C-alpha cells in the first residue's frame, strides 16, 4: 500500500498551474500511515489488545463449549451415536460412575445430561434415551440440537428412524466464533475513536494544521488523507486478527476468502462511523488529557454492552434496549452472521442500515463541533 502511494506520488504532474489535490491527499495519507505505524498506542489498541483477548478466550474455551454427558451404567457404548457425539468435540462422555453418583452430579449440574443407548430388539436401529437436568438447561438445549443434528446425518438416518424431525444446522459454534467478531468490532471502535480524536487534537494544538493551511492543500484533502490512512491501518489490523483467529484458533469462515472480504467491507463501514466519534471528541476536548475520559464514555459502554464478550440476550431485559441502541452491537451482529452463518452483505442489510443511520447522525454532529483551529 505504501509503495503504491509512493509510485503514484512521484509520477503525478506538478508545477505551476498543475496543482493536484490527489497528490496532496495521498502525501498526507502516506505520512499519516507512517505515523500511525510508529505510534505504540495505535498498535496496542488495534492489534495487541484484541489479540490478547482472543488468546485468552481461545485457550480458555479450549475450542468451544463443553457438555458433560453421563453414560448411564449398562448402556451400550460401542454404537454410532456415541461415536458421533465424541466426534463433535463438544461433548465429553463421562463413564464409569454409579447411578447414585450420576444422580448427584446431575442434580448439581456438574453433568449436563445422561444418555442411555440400547440396540432395539430385532432391529439394526438404536433407541436413545436422554435425561436432561434443570440445573443445566442451556447446555441441555445445545445437546438436544447436537443430537438432532446427528440423527439428521445421512449415515445414521436409515438406521435410526425415531428422531428425525430436526432441521437445525448444527455447525460447530466455538468460543472463538463469538469472541473474534466482538474483538474485531472493539478494535475498530478504539482505533476509530481514540486514534482520530488524538491525531486531530494534537495536529490542531501543535499548529500542524495551521502550517498545512499555508500550503495550497484543501481541507477535504486533510480529512480524506487521514481517513485513508486510518481505514488502511484498521483493515490491515482486522485482516491480521481474522487470519490469526482462523489459522490458530479455528475461527469459522464459512465461505473462506469471500467471507473475509465481506467482513472487511463491514469493517470499513464500522471504522468510518466510529471515526465520526473521534472527530467530535477532537472538537470538544480542550486538551490531550481530556481525550481518554471522553473517549471512554463512548467506547466503554459499547465494549461492555454490545455483545463483545457475552451475547446481549444474556443481559437483563431492561438493559437490552440500551444494547440494541449502540452501533457496535450491529457491527458485531453483522460480523457474526457473515462469518459464522455465512450470510451475504444483503442479508445483514438491517444491521448495515442502522450503522449508516448512526453514521449520518454522528457526522451531522461532527460537522458542527469539529474545530480546525
Amino acid at each position, binding site marked *: 500500500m505504501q509503495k503504491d502511494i509512493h509510485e503514484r506520488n512521484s509520477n503525478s504532474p506538478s508545477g505551476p498551474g498543475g496543482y493536484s489535490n490527489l497528490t496532496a491527499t495521498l502525501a498526507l495519507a502516506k505520512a499519516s500511515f507512517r505515523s500511525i505505524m510508529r*505510534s505504540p498506542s495505535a498498535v496496542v489498541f488495534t492489534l495487541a489488545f484484541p489479540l490478547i483477548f482472543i488468546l485468552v478466550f481461545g485457550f480458555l474455551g479450549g475450542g468451544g463449549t463443553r457438555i458433560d454427558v453421563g453414560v448411564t451404567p449398562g448402556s451400550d457404548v460401542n454404537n454410532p451415536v456415541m461415536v458421533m457425539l465424541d466426534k463433535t468435540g463438544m461433548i465429553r462422555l463421562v463413564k464409569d460412575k454409579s447411578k447414585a453418583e450420576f444422580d448427584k452430579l446431575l442434580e448439581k449440574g456438574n453433568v449436563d445430561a445422561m444418555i442411555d443407548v440400547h440396540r432395539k430388539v430385532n432391529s439394526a436401529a438404536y433407541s436413545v434415551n436422554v435425561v436432561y437436568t434443570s440445573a443445566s438447561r442451556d447446555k441441555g438445549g445445545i445437546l438436544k440440537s447436537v443430537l438432532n443434528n446427528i440423527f439428521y446425518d445421512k449415515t445414521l438416518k436409515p438406521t435410526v428412524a425415531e428422531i428425525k424431525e430436526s432441521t437445525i444446522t448444527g455447525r460447530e459454534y466455538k468460543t472463538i466464533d463469538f469472541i473474534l467478531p466482538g474483538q474485531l468490532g472493539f478494535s475498530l471502535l478504539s482505533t476509530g475513536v481514540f486514534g482520530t480524536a488524538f491525531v486531530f487534537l494534537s495536529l490542531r494544538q501543535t499548529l500542524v494544521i495551521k502550517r498545512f493551511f499555508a500550503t495550497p492543500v484543501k481541507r477535504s484533502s486533510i480529512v480524506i488523507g487521514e481517513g485513508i490512512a486510518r481505514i488502511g491501518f484498521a483493515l490491515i489490523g482486522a485482516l491480521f486478527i481474522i487470519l490469526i483467529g482462523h489459522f490458530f484458533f479455528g475461527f469459522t469462515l464459512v465461505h473462506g476468502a469471500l467471507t473475509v472480504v465481506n467482513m472487511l467491507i463491514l469493517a470499513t463501514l464500522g471504522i468510518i462511523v466510529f471515526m465520526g466519534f473521534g472527530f467530535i471528541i477532537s472538537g470538544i476536548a480542550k486538551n490531550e488529557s481530556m481525550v481518554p475520559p471522553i473517549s471512554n464514555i463512548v467506547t466503554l459502554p459499547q465494549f461492555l454492552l454490545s455483545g463483545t464478550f457475552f451475547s446481549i440476550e444474556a443481559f437483563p431485559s431492561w438493559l437490552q434496549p440500551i444494547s440494541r441502541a449502540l452501533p457496535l452491537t450491529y457491527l458485531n451482529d453483522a460480523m457474526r452472521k457473515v462469518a459464522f452463518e455465512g450470510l451475504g452483505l444483503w442479508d445483514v442489510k438491517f444491521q448495515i442500515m442502522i450503522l449508516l443511520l448512526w453514521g449520518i447522525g454522528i457526522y451531522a454532529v461532527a460537522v458542527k463541533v469539529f474545530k480546525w483551529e
Partner: protein
Amino acid sequence: METKKAIISVKNLVKKYDDFVAVQGLSFEVYEHEIFGLLGPNGAGKTTTLEIIETLRDKTSGEIIVDGFSVDKQPQDIKQIIGVQLQAAGYYPNLNLIELIELFAGLYGANIKPMEMLEKVNLQDKAKAKYKALSGGQKQRFSIATTLINQPKIIFLDEPTTGLDPQARRNLWDLIIEIRNAGTTVVITTHYMDEAEQLCDRVAFVERGQIIALDTPDNLIDKLVSSGFERKKEVKKANLEDVFINLTGQEWRE
C-alpha cells in the same frame, strides 16, 4: 535593492476581534528582493498582520496585494508563491525530516529532492532524525527548509531566532541572507534590534496595531541622533556578544 518594485502592498489593513482592534489601518509595501522587518512589542499586531498576508486569517477591512494576487480573490495563488514559517508550529508526529519534506512536497505539489532541501539548511546529517530531537537552531533551520519547498517568491519568518544561542542566531542570519541573495523576498518579525539592524534592508515599527515608523535602519538611527539623542554610556567598539562569540568560537555546535 534599488529596484524598489513592490511585491507586497498593504493598504489600510484593519483586523477587529470581538472587543479589541488588533490592527488599525496599517499600510506598507515590501519591495522585491529585500529583507523587510516588522518590529514591535508583543501584542502589537505583527503576527496578526503576517497571518492575514499569508491568507491564514481573515481581515476586517483593507486591501492586500501579494505579487499581483489579491488575498480576497486569489488566496490559492498566493499560497503557491509564498513560504511560511509560523511561530512555535510543530510538525507531523513520528516522522523523520526526509519524510516531513516529502509530505510538504506533496502538499505543495512540488517535485523536489528532499535531501537537497536539507542540504540547503545544512541538516543532511539529521535526515533520519525526528523533528522533536533537533536542537533549537536546527528546528528553525528545518522550518526554513519547509518554506523553500515550493521555490517561493516570498518567505515569511515569524521570530525565527527567538530562544537561540548567539552562534545559532548568527548562523541563521547567514542562511536568511543567502536565501535573499538567491532572489527571494524575506519578511521577518523579531524582538532583537541588533538582528534587525544587521539583517533588514528596511524595518517598520508596529505599535498598538499601527505603523509608527518605516525606513532603513540607518536612516531611523540617523534621524534619532539628529534629534539630539545620546546614549548614556559611551559606545565601545565591541559589545558583550562579540566577547561571547570571540571566546566560544564562531562555529555553531549542536
